[in-house]
């Protein structure tokens, strides 16, 4: 077995070296932060669907940029990326590149067009663009699945970091790690069911500030006190690299060139297909805001992504000095890797409250992302499946209720799966990226840029994408749950790795969608016109969607 999965073997879920005990100052910090989130969620609580899903389309440039950043920077960025860089060296950088540069593709090909399309959710786009409830349902199920898979990584992150702060709270029948997962997920779900998207968007700006300052402050203080760096740790760690062992920087030792490209590609197309990322463009006031908030968002994201490799380098050095060899056997476990950011602060012998601050940032990151994912997942259920397919006459009250129930359901499923996770945080998250890239990205891209893409093409394409994603998941990820050794078919795992299956899937899905679309009837004129309206440079009003413009022939929207 090759690649990340082999580098970061699962060896228990108690990170070695981490000081697991209840600590009062960090606990107050985290609980205070959670209370703040709940309070913000409460102040901005919502009762109607427009607010719940797209925050009344009221969000501006910088605020949306921060929300993009917070929504985006999950435990996988805050914790998982430094872990992969520390453990898998150069291969880990595929994540840095994939998770930042993808935003440019999103910006040039999709952000403004999506804003002009102007619906509520990602499945909405698929359903309305291809005039098909079946397509809508597949997209909604995919969205739900993405939220689920993605959140497992977040729950793992919260569980591990929570251990530092709260120690082993020992729920009956569960290990310390598992108890913490249950505890943290309960809090997340609680706040989400109360607040919905408006609260979540307001929260995300706050969460962004908390997580970025905790991360960067942590990096500076660790670098400064340990004598690694002064003003620009993001560049100064370069001189440290040669001391960290060949595994840290040597290319292709822990992942082949092919795996690197496959992973990076999957993360890029995944970025452009993730429903909770796409929905951020529905919440802004205009298409120009959609564009500039993407630039802002990428800047906010880069702040962390420039810093993560530096944190990994410091953490790796501190680990090898204080605990033991990072590489080789036994080496650093994946659990320790996943908390390397917190470990670095702890090993630098910084005050407890400060380490707690760094840990709290990780929790903020995880909660912000779970919030976005659960909103996307639950609106897929309540808006796309329940309201559009099952019960078209649903009242707003019923819709919001179904939305909340599906958040609870997602929370339960995620908690269960996270009790014994199959892989480290970043790997878990990248499975969701492969899925989004294989199934949703081609639909958005072709649907937006080739008006002749039709219903049959979309259905065939999405089913192909789902199939290609599922095969390596069964091949590689299932074995870890049923206790088998390695993947069922090693050759398949080499060429279609679960972590980067979109490299194979995307071209095939494109081809299938195009060929099937060409063999069947063209979409009707109205659908084509909606697509054209998405590309027209003519400004639209805040509440308008492309469909409104086409159907009412451009009459004033004042009738609503």
């Amino acid at each position: 077995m090759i690649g990340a999965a082999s580098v970061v073997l699962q060896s228990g879920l108690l990170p070695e070296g981490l000081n697991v005990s209840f600590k009062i100052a960090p606990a107050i910090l985290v609980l205070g932060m959670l209370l703040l989130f709940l309070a913000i969620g409460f102040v901005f609580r919502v009762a109607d669907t427009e607010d719940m899903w797209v925050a009344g389309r009221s969000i501006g440039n910088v605020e949306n940029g921060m929300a993009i950043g917070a929504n985006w920077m999950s435990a996988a960025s805050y914790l998982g990326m430094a872990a992969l860089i520390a453990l898998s060296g150069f291969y880990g950088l595929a994540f840095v590149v994939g998770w930042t540069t993808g935003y440019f593709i999103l910006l040039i090909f999709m952000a403004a067009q999506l804003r002009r399309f102007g619906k509520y959710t990602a499945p909405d786009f698929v359903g309305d663009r291809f005039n098909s409830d079946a397509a809508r349902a597949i997209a909604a199920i995919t969205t739900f699945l993405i939220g689920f898979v993605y959140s497992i990584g977040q729950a793992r992150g919260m569980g591990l970091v929570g251990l530092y702060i709260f120690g082993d709270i020992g729920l009956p029948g569960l290990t310390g790690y598992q108890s913490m997962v249950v505890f943290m997920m309960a809090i997340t779900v609680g706040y989400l069911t109360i607040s919905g998207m408006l609260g979540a968007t307001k929260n995300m700006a706050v969460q962004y500030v908390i997580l970025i300052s905790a991360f960067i402050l942590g990096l500076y203080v660790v670098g400064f006190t340990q004598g690694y760096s002064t003003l620009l740790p993001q560049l100064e760690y370069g001189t440290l690299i040669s001391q960290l062992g060949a595994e840290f920087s040597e290319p292709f030792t822990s992942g082949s060139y092919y795996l690197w490209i496959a992973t990076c590609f999957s993360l890029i197309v995944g970025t452009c297909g993730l429903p909770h990322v796409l929905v951020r463009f529905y919440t802004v006031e205009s298409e120009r805001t959609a564009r500039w908030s993407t630039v802002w968002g990428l800047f906010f994201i880069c702040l962390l992504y420039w810093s993560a490799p530096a944190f990994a380098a410091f953490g790796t050095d501190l680990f090898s000095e204080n605990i033991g060899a990072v590489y080789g056997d036994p080496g650093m476990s994946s659990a320790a890797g996943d908390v390397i950011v917190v470990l670095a602060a702890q090993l630098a012998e910084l005050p407890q409250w400060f380490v707690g601050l760094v840990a709290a940032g990780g929790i903020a990151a995880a909660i912000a992302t779970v919030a976005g994912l659960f909103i996307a997942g639950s609106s897929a259920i309540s808006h796309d499946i329940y309201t559009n397919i099952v019960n078209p006459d649903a009242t707003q009250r019923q819709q919001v209720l179904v939305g909340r129930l599906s958040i609870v359901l997602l929370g339960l499923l995620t908690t269960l799966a996270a009790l014994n996770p199959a892989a480290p945080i970043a790997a878990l998250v990248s499975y969701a990226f492969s899925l989004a890239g294989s199934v949703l990205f081609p639909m958005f891209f072709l649907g937006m840029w080739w008006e002749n893409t039709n219903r049959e093409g979309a259905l065939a394409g999405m089913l192909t994408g789902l199939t290609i994603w599922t095969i390596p998941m069964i091949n590689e990820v299932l074995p870890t749950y049923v206790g088998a050794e390695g993947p069922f078919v090693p050759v398949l795992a080499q060429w279609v790795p679960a972590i980067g299956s979109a490299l194979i899937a995307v071209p095939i899905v494109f081809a299938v969608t195009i060929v099937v679309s060409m063999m069947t009837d063209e979409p009707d004129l109205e659908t084509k016109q909606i697509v054209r309206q998405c590309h027209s440079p003519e400004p639209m009003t805040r509440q308008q969607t492309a469909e409104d413009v086409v159907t009412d022939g451009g009459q004033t929207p004042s009738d609503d």
Partner: protein
Amino acid sequence: MPDNNNHNSTEKRTATDGGVAGQPGQAHRDTDYLNAEVNLLKPSTLFMRDHLRVVWTGFAIWFVIVFGPVTLTRFAPGLMTSQVPGIGFPLHYFLVAFAAPTGALILSFWYARKRDALDRKYGIEHTTAEETGRGGETAVTDGGERTEGGDDE
């Protein structure tokens, strides 16, 4: 000139750009976007041709930034892993970990600027975005008034 097309919207449009738009602005006013095919490979309007030129230029640079360094590292490992004087990084590490994200950020900024410039060139104003900051002209902006080709027939 305006009177040769059958939209009823020309008067309103001339008002919004104050006549500074010139040729592209005129082309924009004469274009019926709802009847112009959308195809990534075959741009059908002047605006989209201009826009796609920016998009493809950016995409080409992006592609090199993202996949260039790692591919070079694969084929010329000796050269790429040599240390960069001064900052101590191995070259491949620096290009991937720092230059690629930074490059994407700069490109994004460049694209957003270019796209704003295109709007100016075509005399398009996004008044909804900054309603309060502008002068009184914004009162008439509501895009819904603009008749799109729906009433041509």
